[in-house]
């Protein structure tokens, strides 16, 4: 019942499993214990959360006019076929 302590190098590879909730309880406890005593890994986890949050704000550029026209043309063609 005495697993060796996780190193920081090991912990950074477990971050995604941790955030995804894809981790058995024993491993989660080891990660939590490490985090509780390690400001470096706590900062790393915070950076990863920020990364995910900012990635979620990426937005698409506007469609170019030719692409939009071509798609609308297809849509109108379908609609005419409908009616």
């Amino acid at each position, binding site marked *: 019942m005495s697993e060796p302590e996780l*190193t*920081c190098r090991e912990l*950074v*590879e477990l971050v995604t499993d941790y955030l995804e909730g894809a981790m058995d309880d024993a491993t989660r406890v080891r990660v939590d214990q490490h985090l509780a005593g*390690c400001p470096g890994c706590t900062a790393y986890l915070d950076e*990863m959360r920020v990364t995910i949050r900012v*990635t979620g704000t990426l937005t698409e550029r506007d*469609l170019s006019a030719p692409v939009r026209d071509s798609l609308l043309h297809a849509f109108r063609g379908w*609609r005419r076929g409908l009616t």
Partner: protein
Amino acid sequence: MPTPPETTPAQAPRASVEDMQLVRRLRDGDESAFMELIDHYHQSLVRLARRYVSSQAVAEDVAQEAWVGVFRGIDRFEGRSSLRTWIYRILTNTAKTRAQREARSVPFASLGGDDEEAAVDADRFRPAGDEWAGHWVSFPNQWSDLPEQRLLGDETRRVIEEAIDRLPPNQAAVIRLRDVEGFGSAEVRDLLDIGEANERVLLHRARSKVRAALERYLEEDR
């Protein structure tokens, strides 16, 4: 035109009330409903199609063909999955069919040979033999104290966009669907035909590299 099965992976959301309203407008031939959809999804669909076919031009074509599949299938949409998931599945089916015609092997079939990549450079950790082997040489910085406008500025987002573009295609596909588009894990596995473990490895590598790119950018002038 392959018609997608409306199967629902466990945990995947069903169509929302808003989805069904949009579906009704599409069925009525409402052009503004279609514009909403293409503005949201077309470029993302093209990028996803790019995973399966040989060129940007073919990917554009596949996405257009998928939209035709969307109008043609819209009367049969029952809302067992979200509208978005259904559209993406039409795209992946269309792209796979095209890839077969191009005699190109569909990606994700094998992930073999994907070399071990560390999330963080080895030299950030103390070497073997050190009393603190495997621990940080110097701690990463908290980013929470950075001003929001720097974190969410155009330049920061450009750094992320470029980092994603540099990723191997499978990693890029997973991080875009999960973290940019906001699909759930089950939906992404279903769309890309990959297993849970693969999806997580791809996501992990992708996020780790995006974080590293962000770190280089945010800390270059600290």
